[in-house]
């Protein structure tokens, strides 16, 4: 097991830059998830670490050794491909044994290690089969077995469960987490599914357009998104983002949304803290649906809004509230708002309200009530 360090890594495909000055340290035994939309450079970054892709400039250090000029075979890492990449003509046993046989390990050791890994993955009964006769989940188990069997310095996974159906994906997610906890292997995992990322990661790396947007623990990335991109990419249902204006009347500070259609009360400290950031430009706020608090009776700081749409999701409902021309999505207990058209009293939880510079998208780092 080893740590992985990326220093100023850049990659061009022709004139298109797919990775821009990426700096990242993955600690020994850590599970890091590279998260981003398709085409953001996350897979290229992973393949560059593996040695399947050259980098244009920068340095990749595995276990203290620069490896950017080494072949994949000499980096001692394992890779789990999205479409499994199992050897179709070899049995499951031979597939898992392949990395051991390729490095001429003694027959008895191969036999023992393959059986051990197969037992850990619960695929002992499949060892004699060909990959073509397996289900998607089992194929991926075999691919993971092939990665685990030789105890590599790190395991890299490229959307390993992306091709499975939803139910199986959840099972495999649990299994990957369990395997990581048992093996403590340094793992880098690429996905575009933020739920997967939140569930698996010790740290999430959010990428967009070849640039690292934010690196942090799942709760950190969720609670304190560094910019508008991260704010909208992480979390389901998606965070409400709206242009906002701050109005000060007497001692009271209000946030006007939807072109002034609704003004939510905010703590008085907002005004001085906003001016302290020196960001004089336009402001956007972000509030997750659970940060929009609804009440049936008016209370201090609530304003009266009309429910436009209700999405019942079982455990909770998502209610679209009409604010001027736009909408504010709120998360409520199931059945809290009976039908569209009902009026409810809403307030924004200041502690869950995020402030962004509208032009750059960067978070202003203001945490109210904290």
């Amino acid at each position: 097991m080893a740590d992985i360090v990326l220093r100023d890594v850049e990659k061009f495909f022709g004139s298109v830059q797919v990775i821009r000055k990426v700096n990242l340290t993955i600690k020994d035994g850590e599970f890091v998830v590279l998260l981003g939309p398709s085409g953001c450079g996350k897979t290229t970054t992973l393949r560059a670490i593996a040695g399947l892709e050259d980098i244009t400039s920068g340095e990749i250090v595995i276990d203290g050794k620069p490896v950017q000029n080494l072949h994949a075979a000499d980096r001692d890492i394992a890779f789990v491909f999205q479409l499994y990449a199992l050897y179709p003509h070899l049995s499951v046993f031979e597939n898992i044994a392949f990395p051991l046989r390729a490095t001429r390990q003694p027959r008895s050791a191969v036999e023992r290690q393959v059986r051990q890994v197969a037992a850990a993955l619960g695929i002992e009964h499949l060892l004699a089969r060909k990959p073509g006769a397996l289900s998607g989940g089992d194929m991926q188990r075999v691919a993971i077995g092939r990665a685990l069997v030789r105890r590599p310095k790190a395991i890299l996974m490229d959307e390993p469960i992306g091709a499975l159906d939803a139910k199986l994906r959840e099972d495999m997610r649990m299994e990957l987490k369990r395997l990581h906890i048992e093996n403590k292997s340094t793992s880098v995992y690429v996905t575009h599914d933020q739920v997967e990322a939140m569930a698996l990661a010790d740290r999430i790396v959010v990428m967009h357009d070849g640039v690292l947007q934010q690196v942090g623990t799942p709760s950190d990335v969720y609670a304190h998104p560094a910019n508008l991109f991260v704010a909208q990419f992480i979390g389901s249902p998606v965070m409400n983002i709206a242009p906002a204006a701050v109005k000060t009347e007497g001692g009271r500070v209000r946030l006007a949304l939807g072109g002034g259609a609704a003004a939510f009360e905010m703590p008085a400290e907002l005004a001085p803290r906003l001016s302290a950031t020196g960001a004089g430009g336009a402001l956007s706020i972000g509030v997750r649906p659970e940060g929009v608090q609804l009440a049936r009776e008016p209370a201090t700081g609530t304003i009266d809004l009309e429910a436009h749409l209700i999405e019942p999701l079982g455990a909770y409902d998502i209610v679209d509230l009409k604010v001027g021309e736009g909408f504010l999505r709120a998360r409520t207990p199931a059945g809290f708002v009976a039908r569209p058209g009902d009026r409810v009293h809403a307030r924004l939880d200041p502690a869950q309200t995020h402030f962004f510079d509208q032009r750059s998208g960067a978070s202003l780092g203001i945490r109210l009530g904290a």
Partner: protein
Amino acid sequence: MATTTMTTLDPQSRAARRGMSDIAIRNLFIIPTILFLIVFNIFPLLYSLGYSFTDFRASTNAPANFVGLQNYRELLADPYIWNNFTVTAKYVIVSVAGQVFVGFGVAMLLNRSIPFKGLITTLLLLPMMLSMAVVGLFWKLLYDPSWGVINYLLGLGDFEWLGDPDVALYAVAITDIWMWSPFVMLLSLAGLSAVPKHLYEAAAIDRAGPIYTFFRITLPLVLPILMIAIIFRTMEAFKTFDLAYILSTQPTTEVISIRLYKMAFQEWQTGRSCALAYIVLIMVLGVTNIYVKYLNKVKER
């Protein structure tokens, strides 16, 4: 009755738009093909089977006498015929092995992104497109001991490629290798490019060396299509006539089809040559059957 069981044409099809009925299509395309097959393939096949049990000679007017299995018995007991078969076997092995080695090797070289790949591939395919007789004639010139290009280039003086009885068969095989390696190359190339790239990536990650990757990944995955090439080439090599006939008159290059030709059209032993032709046919069928069995086994893996 046939007309009532025929399904009607798809009204969308081009033939239907041209106003052709099913019966017109049958009369125009299928009946001539079947007639052709019967007249030129099936009839001679059956007729020669009949002759193979007689002492018929096409050069005389004497009526054919039924002799039972005598022709087969005598042929299979004839050491000269067995010598022809040995020569043929040697030729098939050398020629097919050479073609597989050269063809697959060139395919490996071409299976990467190189400039002018399409042009190079097309040029390499040219020998295959020439007529056997033409190839035989100009390789005879190339092999010529006193002014042939091959001896000049290899600095072999007046080495007798075709005159030396021990070398002549290999000289013919080399010509065949030159001509038909492109065929093996073409099929191998198709097989090689069908191997998914991510398998090579997986093998690299698994720390497999190039030789291990070749024997454990590349070769097994290309083998089914390579087997097809080998089947075709073995059948053809077994039946080789023109190349060997034109290039050399040495008894050491008398492959079985040359013997057959001489027996049928120089010695006019029509009945006996029919029997020999059947023996050859059964042998080719036997060999290809073994191959096909093996091919199916390879495919199952």
